[in-house]
């Protein structure tokens, strides 16, 4: 996980104190790859800059009010000799004050909130468009600039804004890469937009936020940001077909199984089929080995994980549209041998 941190002294200062406050939090488990507190791009940065002042305001209010309750509990506790209290029914001046103060605080929070809403919604003019489609239970990515299609891993150019146009063909999903921005639903029948930008090259974790059925928790996402030149060559390469395996090799046997067992009905793997990935279909496999993760970014793209996955997808991912085909160990090995040629 890349942790490229620009020097932002003010933010570091702001971060330090709440960490003291959250004391032990900072000792264990701080800042895993899904943290929303380590922004890696301008949009999550903007959210972060809004969150901390509000958090601090809340801390001050918390300390004052809880402090007053503790003080009252201590000072005015029933002790021997304590006189009966005066029967005060209220105090208009006080009531006005403690109604007005929250109004002022909230108004001062409201202004940057409203500004932030509009800032973060409108995509910038030079942004690179991508399309994100939600499927049970993986994300599909399309690049309208050249028609490239991929799944599970979104590859973007570092330092450039990406404007995602999103929808879903089945249920409501929610695209969330905390380091790059907040989350946004993918709603069937509607189009939503999300701005993404990573300042530095690196790999960023994501997750579907909205409960979307049996394997919601295993609907994950990866974003890989590449330097501009690398990104352009990656994008161009997506249109190329994969190489034919050597005749008689194990990979060739795997390809044959891919075609015979029905895998090919849902998975695109060019040049063997060219059906566009759509709707319920599985991810495009043409360049599978470029990706670190499989099956909705839930598992690593290792021979071991691939083996478990192919042996019984519904066991690995409950509800999976990829059925248990009852493959033998030999068949699985052959298929993996072929998959490993999909560079």
């Amino acid at each position: 996980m890349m942790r490229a941190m620009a020097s932002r002294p003010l933010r570091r200062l702001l971060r330090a104190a709440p960490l003291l406050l959250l004391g032990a939090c900072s000792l264990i488990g701080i800042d895993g790859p899904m943290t929303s507190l380590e922004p890696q791009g301008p949009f999550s940065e903007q959210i972060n800059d809004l969150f901390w002042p509000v958090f601090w305001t809340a801390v001050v209010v918390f300390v004052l009010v809880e402090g007053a309750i503790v003080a009252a509990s201590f000072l005015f506790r029933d002790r021997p000799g304590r006189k009966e209290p005066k029967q005060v029914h209220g105090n208009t001046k006080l009531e006005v004050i403690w109604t007005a103060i929250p109004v002022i605080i909230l108004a001062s929070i409201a202004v940057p909130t409203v500004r932030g809403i509009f800032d973060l919604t409108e995509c910038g003019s030079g942004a690179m468009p991508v399309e994100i489609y939600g499927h049970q239970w993986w994300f599909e990515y399309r690049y309208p600039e050249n028609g490239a299609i991929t799944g599970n891993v979104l590859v973007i150019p570092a330092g450039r804004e990406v404007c995602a146009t999103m929808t879903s063909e089945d249920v409501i999903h929610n695209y969330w890469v905390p380091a790059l921005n907040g989350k946004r639903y993918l709603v069937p029948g509607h189009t939503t937009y999300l701005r993404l930008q990573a300042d530095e090259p690196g790999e960023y974790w994501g997750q579907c936020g909205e409960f979307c059925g049996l394997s919601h928790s295993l609907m994950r996402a990866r974003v890989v940001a590449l330097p501009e030149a690398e990104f352009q060559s990656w994008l161009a390469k997506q249109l190329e077909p994969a190489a034919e395996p050597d005749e008689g090799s194990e990979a060739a046997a795997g390809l044959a199984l891919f075609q015979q067992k029905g895998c090919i009905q849902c998975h695109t793997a060019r040049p063997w089929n060219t059906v566009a990935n759509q709707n319920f279909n599985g991810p495009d496999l043409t360049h599978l080995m470029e990706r670190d993760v499989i099956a909705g970014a839930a598992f690593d793209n290792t021979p071991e994980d691939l083996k478990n996955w192919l042996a019984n997808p519904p066991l690995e991912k409950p509800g999976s549209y990829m059925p248990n085909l009852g493959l033998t160990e030999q068949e699985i090995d052959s298929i993996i041998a072929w998959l490993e040629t999909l560079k």
Partner: protein
Amino acid sequence: MSIASERPTTIFRRPAAETGFWSWVTTVDHKRIGIMYGYTAFAFFLIGGTEAILIRLHLFKANSTLLTAAEYNSLFTTHALTMIFLVVMPMAAAFVNYLLPLLIGARDVAFPRMNALSYWIFLFGGIFLYSVIFFADVTPPTGVQGVPGNIDPSEQTTFGALPDGGWFMYQPNAGGDFTPGKALDFAALGIQILGLASLIASVNFIVTIFNLRAKGMKLLRMPVFVWMSLIVAFLLLFSLPIIAIALFMVTLDRQFGTMFFDVPAGGDVVLWQHLFWLFGHPEVYVLILPAMGIVSELIPVFSRKPLFGYAAIVFAGAGIAFLGFGVWAHHMFASAITPVAQAAFALSTMAIAVPTGVKIFNWLGTMWLGKIKFATPMLFAIGFVTMFIIGGLSGVTHAVVPSDWQQTDTYYIVGHFHYVLFGGAIFGLFGGLYYWFPKLTGRMMSERLGKAHFWIWMVGFNLTFAPMHWLGLQGMVRRTWQYAPETGLQPWNQAATVGSLIIVVGVLVFMYNWMVSKRRGKPAGMDPWDARTLEWSIPNPTPVHNFSRPPEVHALDAFWHMKYGEDEEGRPVRRPEADVLVAELDHIGTNPPEPVHLPNPSYFPIVAAAGLPTIAYGIVFHVSALGKGLILLGILITLTGLIGWATEPLEETHEAAVHV
């Protein structure tokens, strides 16, 4: 106690049992109905709590396989449904039922048989909802193009077959295509039935409050708990029809293919979100306002001061209720709504923090300069206020829309609303249980065990739910069956699980305390807390007829002013005649000088209620002849109940004497 008639006026003989099983089945006494509400809600509290513990045990480890995905999804769904509809709402209804007539000086609610009806509908609704476990199985989604998903046989378990679409039932995931099977039909129809119970109860409470107040009890002399009950009743009255219609749409979609929420057919799923949260957000205030009312009764008693800014607290409650109808889309900031809508709902959501703050400051103002006794009820009341502040403040951070885009659908939200609904509502309700226990039983609960319960809960509660804010900020999404080990989420999940087990210890202490105190608790006398409101001006336990003489009210805190005057400094001075007065009230309370007329028990509420789940079973299985038969049978049963009810007079004989 009235005597049943010798000559039945209907075809059935009027029930006459005063003790035993049948007396409870046929009772129309608001106190008994309140007690039944309370015990039923507590039983569901144990069920919902067990579900929560299973969830927490499962999340103890990253990539946990203790529960299957289907089981996990079912448990978080039923945990929410149970705690909201079968615990907090009926527990609040228990308090309102038992206390409302006592607090306003009435003998019963306006419609005693309707009161029984709403309890039985609630009970049958809850049983219907959970009976799903006998009828459902784990089904894979059918998919958009009719290519179904696949279920490994290991997924096929009993608990996995509970409703699993989330309590919010977002469409289309909770529709027929993506969650086939019967489970969600039971949930949708079950909530429908439970909603009917609440609707009937709210009408009853509104009429009671407007018509049966004691002489001199103007609206602004009503105890705050009565005010909050009134506000909640109106909230329910206006919000339940919305969810009723929305749930009918879901049931029609699932059972008869109406396609309201079928996107390819032109349906719209964002509409469901609007309808659901238009009910769902007022519902939040339905859950919290009764506890706020309870706390507003407790803090003055134990601070020995009147409530600071009574009118402000009342109007703040009303203000929260009004605004509560205008903030629903803050549950949808990440959904497909425009920035203009987001900004508008951000502002309304921030606005609702103002009246909420007013309440907190007024509770603090009540304690300030008081003479605070830390009896168990007061500890729970202070616990409520302190925990609710945290929930309120974290709530404000959600109104900051961009910030909410990071936090929504994460454990940050789970932490937030448990601070409101557990740290808030549940703490408040338990404070009420400790406070009014003597009213029920004539005995005191053990203070030692009560305080132990409080501190165990404070530790366990905060250990469970405080780390969830951190987990959410660290990227743990809600409703997640598994989290990856690399996310570093495990340590705080483990802390939360340990905390939840500590909460269980507190529950056990409470149950032990309750059971032992009921039989062997210290006798309470009539006024154990030196209280302020009318319910303590009658003996403990409450006599069946409540008030032997209708009380007359001259001020807020009517009972207090019978006992106390004020010196020139404004400090209370116990009137010399106070002890005599209390003794006299105690005597008259149990020995009414003249006969008291009470409504007679009736069989018909339970009969009318029994038809509803029958109809609901029929709808679920409507494809079969049996289902169609059940629908007809249910209608017949309910009609029988209603006709019998209509032909039966409320009070059988006006000559009935009172025997005590």
